[in-house]
Structure formats: C-alpha cells, structure tokens
C-alpha cells in the first residue's frame, strides 16, 4: 500500500471529523452542546467500526460502534442513500443513557454502502420523572425517559415529522432537543459530503483499503507497545458510594489484567451484581474505558479508531454492574466508569510506574428544573462541576478540573444568574481537600448557591462517602458533599445521587467536590513545596504539620519553615 496515500487519507479523515465536530458545536441549539460541548462525531465503516473520531468524550469510542450495530440489526438490508437513524437506547445501541441521542447516517458511493457518519449529543431533557431525565432513584430504564431503538428519522432526505412530534411531546425542552437533533443531522450531512469527496479522489477500493489499514495500524501500535510491558497478572478494585437505592451498600468494580506477550485481557467478572439503582454500565462503555486507559498509557496522540479496541480482550459477567440485564437502570453510569478507569490505572501502575497516578474526583452534575425563566418557560439548569485530580508520578494533581473520561466546561456564574433564578454565593477551591503525598492531590471545588424560586433539584455525584484513594502511600482526597441550608437548624446532606429534592425559594445549597488522592509518602514531599502550598492557601499550617511533617511559621507577611521542628517531626516518623 502507498505510504503517502495512507497519510493523506488519515489527514483528510481527521479534517472531516473535526469539521463535523465544529459544525455540531456551532449548530447545536442547547447550552449543553454549545457551552458544555457534551457531544462528539465519528465516521464508521459498514460494519460500524469507528474509522475516525475527533475525541471530545472518550466513552463515545465504544458507543458509536454499538449504535451502528443497532441500526444494522434493525435495518440491515434496507438502508438507502438519504436515510438518517436515531438511537438512544442503552440496550439496543450504545448510548450511555437516554439523553445521549445518536444520529447515524449511511454514506453511499457509486451505489455501495461505504460507511456511516454519526454524532452523539447529550439532550437537556428526554422525559422521565425528573428534569434532565437522570433520576438517581430510577429502578428500571423505564424511569429514565423516552427510549428510541434504532428508528428511521429521515428517508429520502425527508424528516419524519411524526417522530419529531413524539420526541417533542416527551421532553420538557422540546425546542432544544429538536434543535440539537437537526444540528446533528447537519453535521452528518457535512461528513457524508466530505467523505464522498475523499472517495472520489482516491477511488473507493483504495480508500477502503486505507481505512482498513488505519484500523490495523492503530491495533498494531497498541500491541507493539503492550508487548514491551512486563508479563503478569494484576488485580485492582474500586468501590462507588452506592447505587442511589441501597444507600449504605458500596458497589464493587474489580478487574484482573492478564498480560502475556502482545496480548492483554481484562476480566471484570468479580465486579458486583447489577444494581437496583442506576449505577449500571453497559459493555460498550467498558471497552471504551479500557481503551481510554490504554491510550493514556501508550500514546495520547495515537490516531483514534476502533483498531484500538481490537488490541485487547474483555470479559464481563452477565448480570453484573458492568453487564446488566434489561431493563436495569443506567442513567448515572459515570461514577461506575470512573471506578473502572481508576481500577485499571491502579492495576496497570505495576506495569507503567512512570505513568502512575492517584484517584481523582470522579464527576458530577447538578440539575435544577423549574418553570420561571425570564421568558416564562420551563427551564433545566444543568451544571457539571469537577474537582481535584490525583497526584501523578513527579507532579501534583490539577485542581478544579475534570478528570478521566469526563470533560465539560464549568458554567459561567454571570450567565447562570442572568438566565435562571439562582444566585451563586461562593466559588473557590477547598483548602486541604487534596490528598497528602509527595505529589499532592488537586483541590476540590466549593460552589454555594442561593435558590431564588421553588425548583426541583437532582444531583448525580460520586465520592461523597468513599474518598479518592491515594497511590504509593499517598493519602486520600477529601470526600464531596451536598449540603442544604448549611449552618442552620434545617441543615441536611443529600446522598451522592439524589433525584427531585424540592428546593424552596431562599434555600441555600452548597456543593463541595472531592480533592484528588496524593501520590507517594507525604513526609517525602519537599518542605519548600509544602511551604508554597501554605503560602498559596492550598494547605493549612495545621495540615502541613500533621500530614507532611512540615512546621511553618509566620515571618511578617511571609511564611517560613521551622527547620528544626520539621527535622524532628520527619525523623520521628521514619
């Protein structure tokens, strides 16, 4: 095969998915798509393998093939040029949960199906018992909004308006949902056109050969890197707080990694049984989580396609939290995915100590629904808030950030207050929330709100009970918390995931997000770094003393190290 043609096709594919992505971000109607950018685009081959993806959300690496397979299962012999399909069903397709709606369109060239263009974008509301469609107390997917199996939305270029009416009738924000779907359709059409230009330039046979070779190359690249790792069997586990229904029962995620030569396998069979509440994760996301970790460990710049998925094998047990049976609920899957990613990093830290890291803050969103925007319409205020990342080999963890597979922008305070009946009282990093370690965990975020109108409040968080763990003797990060009316007689803490709390006008609620775990022995942290942390207000003098064995004192406006006391403290420990 022509080495030049491959590179040209690769550069063109990257350009196409980038262009689709830009189009989607620009044309998306909702704040979620445009500001939070909770959406991604990909090109697939006729089997549904991703041949190129602009990675915004890593989990979609697994979701796209499963969505395509869903379309092929239902419409295999009956897909024609000009069609477009919708699918958001976690069991029929690959959507992590119902709000993640996929639009899949076939691409034909000279009469033959060459592949698919696809996009997945989070919808602000797709029905169900709570605004935003993510109820922490869902017991079946029937509590999680409107589910579309693969359905034909466009035939011969004509949108099926019946389908639009059904969707609109099932959403609290119909204009936003339909606007976003049309934006997705536009991105797909753009992708089709660009892909056809590429096929015309290189000829379909040569192009398809390049697509196949690119899949093969990504697989070979992963395998070559894996082959250099030490052989062995590695095991790790993580627990999530609970499933939202059984509140005092942590849920186990467990992995056994077996690595021999160029092959590597991941067995999650010992993970917990499927949960009653919505902590379950479908297998396409398990594959995506593994791919995320391998890419991170091997080469963050690798060309992303399904070839990466072929470089490993995975086992999940049917009926477990990572392979639940229909109709187990799935809407707050993200905490479980974080636990999976963290168990994978923990297991593989034996293989790649130079890329070791402690656990991070997980992820969370808060959703406030009500009926009183300035325009007098139903509204859904949706915010995603990060926290601390884990300490890393040779580097502290980042503060106030998204971690792992999660990646959304924080909402602007001035925009939120202008649009919704809310006032934000406080937005800052939390001192001492980062896990102690030679490399400190990043700090969590404190965001405090005054609620100005009666509203319905839901939270989907993680790590309010079980903290982000440290690594290599590092300490844990501080847990998260959601407090209603803090410091008053009515003070109340909501569980990690909670749906439909009735907030009243005048209620205050405070979200504290977890700090990251520390990495390495905190008593080995350079005292001058501890001093700097105290000076910046990231670590209190008390914790410098107790966690790091570093005594600091005020000297006018500055902080200085009490060398003698520090020496005594640190020697006393060892």
């Amino acid at each position: 095969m022509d080495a030049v043609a491959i590179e040209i096709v690769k550069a063109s594919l990257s350009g196409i998915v980038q262009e689709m992505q830009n189009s989607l971000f620009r044309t998306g109607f909702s704040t979620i798509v445009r500001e939070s950018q909770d959406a991604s685009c990909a090109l697939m081959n006729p089997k549904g393998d991703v041949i190129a993806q602009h990675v915004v959300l890593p989990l979609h690496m697994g979701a796209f093939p499963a969505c395509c397979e869903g379309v092929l299962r239902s419409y295999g012999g009956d897909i024609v040029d000009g069609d477009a399909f919708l699918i958001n069903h976690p069991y029929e397709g690959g959507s992590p949960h119902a709000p993640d709606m996929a639009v899949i369109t076939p691409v034909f060239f000279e009469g033959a199906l060459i592949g698919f263009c696809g996009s997945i974008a989070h919808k602000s509301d797709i029905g169900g018992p709570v605004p935003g469609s993510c109820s922490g107390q869902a017991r079946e997917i029937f509590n999680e909004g409107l589910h579309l199996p693969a359905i034909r939305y466009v035939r011969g270029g004509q949108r099926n308006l019946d389908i639009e009416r059904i969707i609109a009738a099932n959403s609290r924000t119909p204009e936003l949902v339909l606007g976003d779907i049309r934006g997705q359709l536009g991105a797909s059409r753009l992708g089709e056109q660009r892909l056809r230009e590429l096929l015309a330039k290189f000829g379909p046979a040569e192009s398809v050969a390049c697509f196949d070779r690119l899949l093969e190359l990504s697989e070979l690249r992963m395998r070559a890197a894996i082959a250099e790792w030490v052989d062995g069997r590695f095991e790790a586990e993580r627990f999530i707080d609970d499933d939202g229904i059984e509140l005092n029962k942590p849920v186990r995620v467990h992995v056994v990694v077996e690595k021999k030569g160029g092959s590597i396998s991941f067995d999650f069979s010992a993970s917990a049984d499927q949960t009653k509440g919505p902590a379950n994760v479908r297998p396409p996301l398990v594959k995506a989580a593994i791919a995320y970790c391998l890419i991170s460990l091997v080469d963050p710049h690798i060309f992303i396609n399904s070839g990466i998925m072929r470089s490993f094998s995975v086992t999940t047990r049917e009926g477990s939290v990572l392979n639940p049976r229909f109709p187990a609920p799935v809407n707050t899957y993200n905490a479980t995915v974080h636990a999976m990613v963290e168990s994978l990093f923990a297991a593989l830290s034996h293989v790649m100590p130079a890329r070791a890291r402690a656990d991070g803050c997980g992820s969370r969103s808060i959703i406030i629904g009500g009926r009183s925007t300035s325009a007098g319409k139903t509204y859904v205020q949706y915010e995603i808030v990060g926290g601390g990342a884990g300490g890393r080999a040779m580097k502290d963890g980042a503060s106030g950030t998204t971690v792992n597979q999660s990646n959304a922008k924080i909402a602007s305070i001035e925009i939120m207050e202008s649009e919704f009946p809310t006032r934000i009282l406080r937005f800052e990093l939390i001192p001492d929330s980062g896990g102690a370690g030679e490399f400190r965990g990043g700090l969590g975020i404190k965001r405090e709100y005054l609620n100005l109108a009666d509203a319905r409040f839901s939270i989907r968080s993680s790590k309010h009970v079980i903290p982000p763990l440290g690594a290599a003797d590092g300490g844990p990060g501080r847990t998260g918390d959601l407090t209603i009316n803090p410091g008053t007689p009515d003070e109340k803490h909501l569980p990690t995931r909670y749906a439909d709390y009735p907030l009243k006008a005048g209620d205050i609620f405070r979200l504290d997000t977890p700090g990251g775990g520390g990495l390495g022995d905190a008593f080995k942290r350079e005292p001058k770094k501890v001093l700097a942390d105290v000076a910046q207000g990231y670590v209190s003098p008390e914790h410098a003393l107790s966690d790091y064995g570093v005594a600091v004192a005020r000297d006018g406006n500055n902080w200085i190290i009490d060398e003698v006391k520090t020496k005594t403290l640190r020697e006393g420990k060892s």
Partner: protein
Amino acid sequence: MGRYRVTVDTGGTFSDFVYLDEGTDEITVAKLPSTPDDPSRAILAGVEVLLAKGVAPADISYFCHGTTVGTNALLEGKGVCTGLLVTEGFRGIYEVAEQCRPHGAAIFDIFYDRPPLLVPASRTAEVRERVSAVGDVLLPLDEDALRQTVRALGAEGVQSLAVCLLFSFLHPKHEERARTIVAEEIPQCAISLSSEVVPQIREYYRLSTTVINAYLEPILARYIANLEGRLSAARVTTPQKYIMQSNGGMATFAASAKKAVATVLSGPAGGITASVQTCRTTGYANLVTFDMGGTSCDVALIKDGQPSVQNRGTIEGRHISLPMIEINTVSAGGGTLARVDALGQLQVGPESAGAVPGPACYGNGGTEPTITDCNLVLGYLGENNFLAGRMKLDAAAAHRAVESVAQKLGMEAADAAEGIVRIIDVKMQEAIKAISTMRGHDLSDFYLLAFGGAGPLHAARIAAELGMAGVVVPLYPGVYSAMGLLMSDVKHDYIRSRIGGLAKTNSADVGRLFDELEALARQDLRDEGFGADRITIERSLDLRYAGQGYEITVGIDFPLQADSLQNLRRRFDETHRQMFGHTAPDEPVEIVSYRLRGIGRVPEVKLPKFKPEGRSLKDALRETRTARFAGKMLDCPVYFRDRLDVGVQFEGPAIVDQLDATTVIPAGHSARVDAFKNIVISARGA
C-alpha cells in the same frame, strides 16, 4: 515635510522594513537581523537605512510597528509582579478557568496541565461587595477593608493590579472606586479594570483578559517609552506613531501602552491587513490568506474585502476576550520533519527541525528531511538562489536526508519527496477548509493569497486541489506583514454587555447605549489626533436565541429607524442560517452585548500601479532547471521576479525566484503579472 512612511514588523529572526515614498508611491523593503534583547535597536537600524539615503528625520510622517514584546513576555512568563482583586468568595474563577481540558490528546494525557497562573493565589485578594445580574448593588463596597487589602498587596511588591468583580460590566463603580484607592495607597502600581478592558458578560474570560493586560501593561509601556525615546533622539518626531493590534487596526503609542493585551495576538494581523488592501485595490474581493513560514502556516478568510473576525481567542491555553482576526494555524512549515515510525509508516510533522539544526540543506547538522529539503530535491528551490544566493543550500545533504526516509519506505527519493510534500499540502488544505467550506463558503469564489517564505512554493497545488479560483502572489511576499502596517487604520473596540429580550427592548435604549460608547470612541480618537471627518463608527450587537449558549455579532445601521430592530431580528435569523444551517424564527431573541468600533482613518495608501516597460519574458529568464511535477522531471524556466514585466504571461511548469520567496507554477497552470506586479496563477481550463 512628511514624505515617508516607515513600518517595521519585528520577528524572532528578522525585522522586516517597508519604506513608502508618499510622493512617488515607490516602495522599498529591507530585512535586518532582529535584536531580541532590545528590539528597538534593530528598529533604529532600519530607520538609519532610510536616513542614509539622504531622507531627513522630519520627512518621516508615519511610523507603524508590529511587535511581539507583549506576546513574548506572556509566553516566557516574564510579565510584572501582578495582583488580582475579585469579589469576595470568588477566587475560584481564575483558578478553575474553563475547568475542562482541551479536546483531543490532552483528555488522555494524565500529565496535561493548564498554563500556570499569572497571578498566584497568594496575590489574589477578595473585595467585599456584590452586584446582581441586573446591576443592583446587593452588598455595598467595603472600602476600609479594601484599603487594608490593597496595602497588603503593595507590601507584597505588586507592580500591577487586575480588578475583576462580578457584573462589573453592569455596575463599574466598585471597580472604579478600587482604582482610586489603589492610586492613593500604591501610587506607582499600574491598574487594569475589567469594566474598562472588556466590560463583557462571562466572568472568567473577562478576568483572564484583564489579568493578561495587567501582567503585560508595564512591560509594553516601558518598551514603547524606550522606543519613543530612541526615535526622538533620532529626531523622528511625527505624532503618527502606531502599534499594530490583534483586531487588525492600529493604536497610537500612548493608547497601546494602556491596552497591552490587544497586541498579544497581533502577529499575523499585518499580513491580513495587507491582504484586505489587496482586495480593495486589485479587485479580488474574496481571498484566503496563506502565510507559510518555517514552522507554521496561518490561514485566514477575507470575504467581500472583510476579514473574518472572532470575539475570543487563546494563546497557549490562556483566554483573551477581544475581537481579533480569525486565524487558523497548523504546524506545517519549511522546517516540518518527515519521519518513518516503528511500524514503517511515514509521518509528516508536527515536529519541526526549528532554527537549529534547521533543514538538512542548511548545513547546520540536520540529517532528517524537512519540507524545505523536499522542495530542494524536487528542484523547486535552487542551490544557489536561496535569499538571492546569500545562503547556499546543500543539495547533497537534502538528498541524503530524503533518501534515509525513502529507503525505509522502499521508495525512490524523488517519489518520497513528492509524497511528503503532498501530505503537508493536505494538512494545510484541511486548515483552509476549516475556515471556509465549514462556514458555508464556496472556495471556487476565492483566490489563495500566498506569502511568507514558503507560501508561494505550495500555493498553486493547494489552490487547485481545493478548486479555488487561483493564486495571487504579492510583489513582496517575504515582508508582507510589514506591508500591511502601511495600510491600516486606527481601530478601537468597545463593548457593553446588557442581556435583554430584543422584542422588549426599545430603540431609544439601544440608541442611548450606543451613544455612550460612541462618546468614548470619539474622545479616544480625538486624543489620538483624529478630526471628526476622519472618524468612522461601526455598531453591532451580539444576539442569540434566548437560552442559547453562543452569540452571533450582527451589524446595525445608525441612526435607528422605526423598523431597525425588526430588521436586526431578520438579519440575525439570516446570519444564523448562513452560519449554522437553520433558524428558529418563532424563538425569542436576546441581546447580550453592544459592540462599537471607532475607526480613525489614516490617509489611504494606494498600492503602486506599474506600467509595462516593454520587456519580454525572455529578459527575466535566469536559467532552466529540471523540477519534478506529478512524478515527471520536467525542464522548466526560472525567472527573476524583479525582471518580470507587467502584463507578461507564461505557462507552467515555471519557477520565479526573488530575494525572500520562490513561486512555483506547476505544469498545467498559467501565470500572469498584473498591474500591481502580483503574480496571478490559475489552473488551465479552470
């Protein structure tokens, strides 16, 4: 008196000069080595070049400078000791920034970090005050506490202070009061208020822009004062001394010193401004500019003579919320490396050979092939005519370097060189598509305007691949940015955010807000020496469908008529359709911000038009060289650019050499020299 315009674009290696004789429209150019420790030394050397020709300093009527002093200080972390004041409880705005990681590799890279804070938490202080989303004071400013805070910051040695309070764009009084208190407590401290730098909604972007301004302002002020001093010492006393801004306009020395952040992304603005002027004078209204240098390639779109503008940009992960020319940068340049990886795959870029060792053919020890080496192997560059022969290229070294890669691929060296160039061309084509076809523009209406050292080498093939109308290579492609500095106007941007439903807004309120902004603009321009007859005002609004997260800027004509706001609504829907492919005419529209641009018009420069001198094409022939086109070695003529007469036409394959660039006209293309001595290339049959 007053006959010469002098402009200088200071780059990392060279400072480019353009001299215009306003009497004769004659333009001359020079390239001198930059003096990074004090860029003004090279600038004075460039002024001396003109004075040495017998021009009196008083004859210099206009001086414009493109500087990277601010940019470099930001990139190298060499700004001043800066402090920050925020509303009490809101320290997180700066530290959390956007919270997310950039798309792509950073999401997978556990070692990714945001750029370090320009103001550490220890120099960030809180101000007890709060303003609501409609501009009401919820908590009055605690002045005594503020005074204490400011004193403490002074004791920390803060030299410049950024102030960004919540909703200060609605109620700037608290920030203004803070300035007074700072002036009283630490009088030598510079101060930047977010309500002045960019009074716009979205606290983080406003804060980031204000912090960058505070961080750089004393640096730029010092640099400009120093330059001013040197120019005065050389008796260059014209009041028309300007600095280029990121928005493609200039500002006087004094105004620039106060708004340092506006120069940070000004690097490519000169080239775009020159391109806009090319549009005006030569009749190519639609252009894609293509500036390819040693390590990167900048492309920008000009439609109907107007460059595409964006309202926010980033530099190394830092956000600047100011209007700037929209430029797409891709790492593709003459120094971009080609390698074969462990799996036997050819990789072109993004790594670059940089200045050291540079391309193998520069003879500085480079052994890996770069794009420049490939262009030499293919015969596009000649060994002896690089920089007019001042730098000899080592063809044997280039061959060896390309051969090392070709061997691993089992290819002939010439095939590999051609393939490598094709790959880099595709990467640049994708960058062009991203700013054109993606926005609904049809490239067949656009010419590709090629400049920079390497642009004219690649342009014709790229334009043909993209189905563009053709290529324009200006007369001085290597100093094109400095050319742009000759031709700009003074431009200042003003903004006020006021969210409100368009249907509920009355035109009197709109008019009043614009009147306030206009008064500011006129005052500033008057201070810079512009009479009312030289001032133009442009107004626009940032609009969105209610609840959307993204605004579109739509122009509005003044004075307002009864139906102005209805027309505005219609224009918004139209623009939305054009940009995004759909509209929602039944959805309410919101105004988010009011924008006003004050333009001080500098007397226009006409690009010189030339008359044919009756020379034939043969007079320009330098030599015949063999060069490779689409797999074949072809004999092709090489012409001297400066001897190509107006009106001559020739067919590709052909090569045109000049001091600072080489233009390739591939087989199947024809070229002509227009009255401005641009080379215009088009694919035959196109």
